[in-house]
């Protein structure tokens, strides 16, 4: 801590005071660069290593080199991807599509629940409103992970009876998994979204209602377009969160064909890690790239959207 503090202040001073000797300034700058490079290496090494592993034709952990050896053609580089995607024991596309279906369904539904609840909390005054808000806050504190036994047993108990339009909601079904995620939808994002709704002046609603608009019309035509930025944030968080969720998915999904990507990758790894390292790397690369891209691209958009929305409000 102490050296860090000194370094920082000294650097700050060196910027401010040109009186400090040039040589010390240079040494400090070199030290600072060195530290940053070290942390960069720490951060990026696993990423570089896994990318290298995915293109390494030997595919095993022990024989991996940073620069792939014995590469004679492009197809040599893609050996692991070929093994991954053409292995009947590893229904990789199936897992990806499972994850996508679960994440998209959960995102849309939780967005609807969040938007409607937040609007009601923000705009309507009714008895019990405050205690309801506090209750939601309190429930969100307890991770649904702690109730994993109860959730598991409930899906086990309702499973035989709840097949609606061909979608089952019991154990080992995507319907049941989404249901469990949705149970937390209200708690997680209602407060965040309500805060944003509050920043939009009520004059808008009131003038609309004087003109005879129903609550629904006010919400849909006036307020909803203004809150799209925060809904984009909620959607992104919800999508990435669901896509990455592992624990509930692992407990509730038992069949290989029903696994989400994270459960599939984990179980695949547990089986033969060292031998299938290259295949795992290929799978990780395919799975992580879209999420990282989404994050990098949308983060800027969303930060921009947030400020823009605030200005509009």
């Amino acid at each position: 801590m102490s050296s860090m503090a000194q370094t920082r202040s000294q650097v700050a001073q060196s910027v401010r005071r040109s009186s400090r000797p040039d040589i010390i300034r240079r040494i400090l700058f070199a030290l600072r660069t060195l530290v940053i490079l070290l942390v960069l290496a720490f951060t990026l090494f696993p990423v570089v290593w896994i990318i290298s592993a995915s293109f390494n034709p030997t595919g095993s952990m022990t024989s991996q080199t940073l620069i792939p050896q014995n590469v004679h053609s492009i197809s040599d580089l893609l050996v692991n991807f070929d093994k991954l995607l053409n292995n009947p024991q590893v229904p990789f596309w199936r897992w990806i599509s499972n994850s996508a279906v679960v994440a998209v369904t959960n995102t849309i539904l939780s967005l609807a629940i969040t938007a409607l609840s937040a609007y009601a909390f923000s705009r309507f005054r009714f008895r019990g409103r405050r205690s309801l808000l506090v209750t939601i806050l309190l429930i969100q504190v307890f991770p649904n992970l702690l109730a994993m036994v109860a959730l598991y047993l409930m899906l086990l108990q309702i499973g035989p009876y709840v097949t609606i339009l061909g979608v089952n909601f019991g154990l080992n079904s995507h319907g049941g998994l989404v249901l469990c995620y949705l149970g937390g939808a209200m708690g997680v994002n209602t407060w965040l979204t309500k805060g944003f709704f509050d920043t939009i002046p009520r004059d808008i609603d009131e003038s609309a209602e004087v003109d005879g608009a129903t609550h629904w019309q006010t919400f849909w035509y006036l307020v909803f377009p203004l809150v799209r930025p925060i809904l984009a944030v909620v959607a992104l968080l919800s999508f990435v969160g669901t896509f990455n969720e592992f624990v509930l998915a692992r407990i509730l999904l038992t069949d290989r064909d029903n696994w989400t990507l994270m459960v599939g990758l984990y179980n695949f790894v547990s089986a033969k890690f060292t031998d299938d390292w290259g295949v795992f790397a290929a799978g990780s690369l395919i799975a992580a790239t879209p999420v990282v891209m989404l994050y990098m691209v949308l983060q800027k958009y969303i930060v921009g959207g947030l400020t823009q929305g605030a200005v509009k409000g």
Partner: protein
Amino acid sequence: MAAAQAKQRAPSPTGISLSVVAYSLRLLAIGIVSVFSFWLAVQVGRDGNLFLAFALVLIAVGVGAINLIPGLWPLRWMSPGLALMALLAIYPLIYTVYIAFTNYSDGHLYTKERAVQLMSNAQYLPAESVSYSWELYGNDEGTFALWLTTEEGATFFAAPGQPLATVTLNQSGEAPYDKDGLPATFNGFRQLSGKERLQAMRDANLQTIQFGDPANPIGITSRSSAGNYQQKWVYDAEQDAVVDKETNVIYKADVSVGEFVAADGSHAPLGFWVQVGVENFTRIFTSVSIREPLLRVFGWTIAFAFFSVLTAFSLGLFMALMLDKFPGARFIKSLLIIPYAVPGMISILIWRGMLNPNGGVITSSLNGLLGWAPPWHTDPGWAKVAVLLVNLWLAFPYFMLICTGALQSISSAIYEAAEVDGANAWQRFWSLTLPLLLVAVGPLLIASFTYNFNNFLLIEALFGGGPPMVGTSAPPVGHTDNLISYTYRYAFSSGGSREYGFASAIAIVIFFMVGGLTLFQFRFTKRWEEVGDNV
């Protein structure tokens, strides 16, 4: 949306018809939801899950009330969310408490009635009741069937899953009938030769096939005889016991432990579900073989949560300071947040591979360079270091982003004032920057502490909780296990039996700890006041 509201407004021609349509649609939706919920409640209630049935009815009534009572119209907007929250967040909490006071576990999954009913499905072949001789038939799909002859000479044809067909012999001795009068083919089945029969007995597990009507099946008991299966377990209401008809042993129901117990102390295959009072909690606090590992797990849970926040925050703050006004800081930061963006599961598995003792790059490089590598997988101390290291990698970018933002919000005028007062760099950091920063990011630090208190993913995916503690088995507890992975092991581990009741009791103990932390957090952040002001 609300008919009651619409009535108060100046009625427009379309408005009225629309609201009538909306009202009817709403009634229809509520009707469907209610009917389905009540039906489901009856079904799960019949299985003995009265608790769930009651919750379903309560929620259905609540949703109905919200949507039909005009005064509750604002709640209509959130009724789907509230219903889901009630069913999947509140009910599980209450149900967890309920399970914690039962012996719910593998072998005790059902009510007594249901356990008796399930056991009554089990059948056995009584050796003495053999009454058929059999000839084997088979078809091209590999299904076998029996031509059965009783001692009295009556003949039947038994294919799996079909009722017995009474058949007659044809004693003419002409083809297609053999000398005993059996047809060469019957109903698509072909009589098998002695050789095929031997082969089938060897390869196809003929003894396990049930022939004929599933309600009263027939099985092969020996090379030449077959007999009717009989119900193995019969409930005797008078003694409140199940009787094993094969051995005639009586297993009396013991409601204090939820087992059917024989005189020699052995148990029937299925126990049942009973209230056991505070036994699960007593077990947590008194059993030495549970308490000792649990205490260590508890200590590590706190230590892990504390050190993971401390290390990640320190490195995050350090990097935020280092990158302050550094050339290319924006670009470097965008590289540094990659760990934050990669799905956590994948990052952890990558680290698990790199730390692998057999050829993981970190282990083998250290071995090559120093001739020694930390025994991450066998030494508890090093395993914990590895967990913290991986967590540092995962978490510091988040704190770097937060600290960057917080540092920018600290006014530079304060620093100038301090400099004028003669404070040196160290004093300025220690008494100005850090306190101001902590005020800004304090709530996030506590939130992060709570998150890591419940961090299951890292613990489970990196080492599976290992290395195992000596002396714990079924399920094995590991040195890096935290409370939540410990709970998971009791409830869902593949090794030991699944002890739902006991796991729920541990979960409740964790509830109280998390609750305490949260209370502290609310105090600390004055969230209550905020709640009071903002709602």
